[in-house]
């Protein structure tokens, strides 16, 4: 489970849920906006869903990064118009707060989420960004760490310092997302993101600036870092845990993912329904469907991200038992992977995102780190 700390979520009006869901009917279709590398490209879970419910799903991998996604849909949402999607996967970052505080998210009717209630890890309900899961339920959590290409980098990569290593000048990738970038700056400077203040940010920014000015950073990436790694543009980069696994599976590469000694960050991507969704009932049906034990298991097996359903680990082992040969080894390795089912040891090394209490704080944070990316 993933926890966070911070101010409790401003509660919604008690009748908001009823008001939103009143009169909503199933339309038999829904549009799902997700990140790339977040589902088996053959979409087995969605096919199963359609077969079972008759609801057709249009699945688009249109989210590369939170900032642009929010900026893209914000004008439509504030105009009260449909963004063309009924379900989207958004991270517990700055923009989650913006979605939430702007009133862009539909309050969830938990009576329609029995699987979630039954199978989800309980800790999620206590998250700082959405306590009580009023607006969202997790899709998956993940770890931001370091990925590298062992064919190019022979020395073992263990520490954040490797991202600052002049030996890899021009071959280092960093995230463009300010939260992600800032976190690694803080961690590299020995600071805890979740407890950081403006002074800490400035120290971190200086560290990052140093890295940049030395010409070590090739570029600041969104989801495109995977492509850059594949093309040899970067040899070592900030990365999201499951992506590297999927990349290796699909393209036969042999990249490595590590959580640095200094620690990595953990985040959660959440399924949420935009307030202007045209097919919210279909959307919530899918949300719950993905919490079915079997479905959660197969999804985790493929994407290799932290599974919000603890029961999936046992289920996976069952799958392994039923399989044989390579498949069996593979399933076992996933079930035992600390990246999918992290243990306490891992959690100790993982940090939470910076938490902003006010809009000014967030603005200050951005003003500190933005010139690094755009400069």
């Amino acid at each position, binding site marked *: 489970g993933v926890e966070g700390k911070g101010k409790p979520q401003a509660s919604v009006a008690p009748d908001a849920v009823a008001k939103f869901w009143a009169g909503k009917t199933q339309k038999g279709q829904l549009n799902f*906006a997700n990140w*790339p*590398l977040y589902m088996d*490209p053959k979409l087995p879970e969605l096919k199963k869903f359609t077969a079972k419910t008759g609801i057709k799903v*249009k699945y*688009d*991998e*249109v989210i*590369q990064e939170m900032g642009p996604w929010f900026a*893209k*849909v914000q*004008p*439509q949402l*504030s*105009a*009260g*118009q449909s*963004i*063309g*999607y009924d379900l989207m996967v958004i991270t517990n970052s700055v923009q989650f707060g913006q979605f939430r505080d702007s009133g862009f998210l539909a309050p969830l009717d938990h009576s329609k989420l029995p699987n979630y209630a039954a199978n989800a890890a309980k800790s999620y309900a206590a998250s700082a960004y959405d306590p009580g899961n009023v607006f969202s339920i997790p899709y998956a959590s993940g770890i931001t760490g370091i990925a590298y290409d062992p064919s190019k980098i022979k020395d073992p990569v263990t520490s954040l310092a490797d991202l600052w290593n002049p030996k890899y000048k021009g071959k280092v990738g960093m995230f463009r997302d300010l939260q992600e970038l800032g976190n690694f700056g803080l961690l590299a400077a020995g600071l805890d993101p979740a407890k950081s203040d403006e002074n800490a940010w400035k120290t971190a920014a200086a560290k990052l600036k140093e890295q940049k000015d030395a010409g070590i950073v090739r570029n600041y990436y*969104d*989801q*495109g870092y*995977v*492509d850059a790694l*594949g*093309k040899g543009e970067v040899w070592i980069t900030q990365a999201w845990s499951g992506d590297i696994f999927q*990349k290796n599976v*699909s*393209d*036969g590469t042999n990249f490595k993912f590590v959580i640095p000694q200094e620690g990595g960050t953990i985040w959660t991507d959440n399924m949420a329904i935009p307030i202007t969704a045209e097919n919210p009932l279909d959307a919530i049906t899918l949300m719950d469907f993905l919490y079915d034990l079997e479905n959660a298991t197969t999804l985790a097996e493929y994407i290799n991200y932290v599974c919000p359903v603890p029961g999936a680990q046992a289920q996976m082992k069952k799958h392994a038992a039923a399989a044989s040969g390579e498949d069996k080894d593979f399933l076992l390795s996933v079930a035992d992977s600390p990246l999918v089912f992290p243990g306490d040891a891992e959690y100790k090394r993982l940090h939470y995102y910076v938490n902003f209490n006010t809009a000014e704080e967030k603005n200050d944070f951005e003003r500190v780190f933005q010139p690094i990316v755009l400069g």
Partner: protein
Amino acid sequence: MTGRFRIGGARLMHIYTWVLIAWLVLPISVMILFGFNDPSGRYNQTWQGFTLKWYRDVFALEALTDALVMSLIIAVLTALIAGALGTGIGYALGRWQFRGAAGLNLLMFAAISSPELVMGSSLLSMFVSLGISPGPVTITIAHVMFSVSFVAIVVRARVVTLDRSLEEAAADLGASGWTTFWKVIFPILLPAIFSGVMLAFALSIDDFVITNFTGGTTETFPMWIWGATRVGLPPQVNVMGTMIFVAGVLIAVISNVRSRPKKRVAA
């Protein structure tokens, strides 16, 4: 000019011209080539074998197909609207001198020479301020905005070369103003209007920057590609790119052949 007035040798320049053309064509050939590649994974990056399957499955990626269809619809609408509005402006500017013509010319010049980025972002600013939601409609509005001046210029160029006595000749032969327009002026302007419309179509279907600002979540073909490039372009993109390329070249070649004047017959 005869062959002796060369600077540094015509032959050298000839070779150089071809080198440059090769350079211009290189990425296009790569695009076409990789439409026939058979990559094993998600990344169509290195040559792994020949296949035609992407031609068979061009439309297999629903989102990509939708984006292409969206691009085509917007481009057709843009071409029609900008064609009509631009023809009006072009005809009026070429035909009459009137108060405000200079201002309009300036406005068009500004619209043509403004950075796309600024036009896109300012439109977005306005839509945001007015609470207008971006989407296919705003994209079309923007596309019409930046292509209308081009149509107007193409049409105007033809109108100014129009022999004014043609109108008088028509009147002289008993045609009313309306008849003169439809029977004489319009048919003569038609090729220019057609060029303008094709230009608007091409500008629209190719546009990325302004669409990126005014499109919201609407995905056009270039936008979809821009997004997909982060995680590897599927070969279908190459196939569609090739199809658009071939169609464009064919249209250009055909209209060029058609407009080539027949040999003048001597008296």
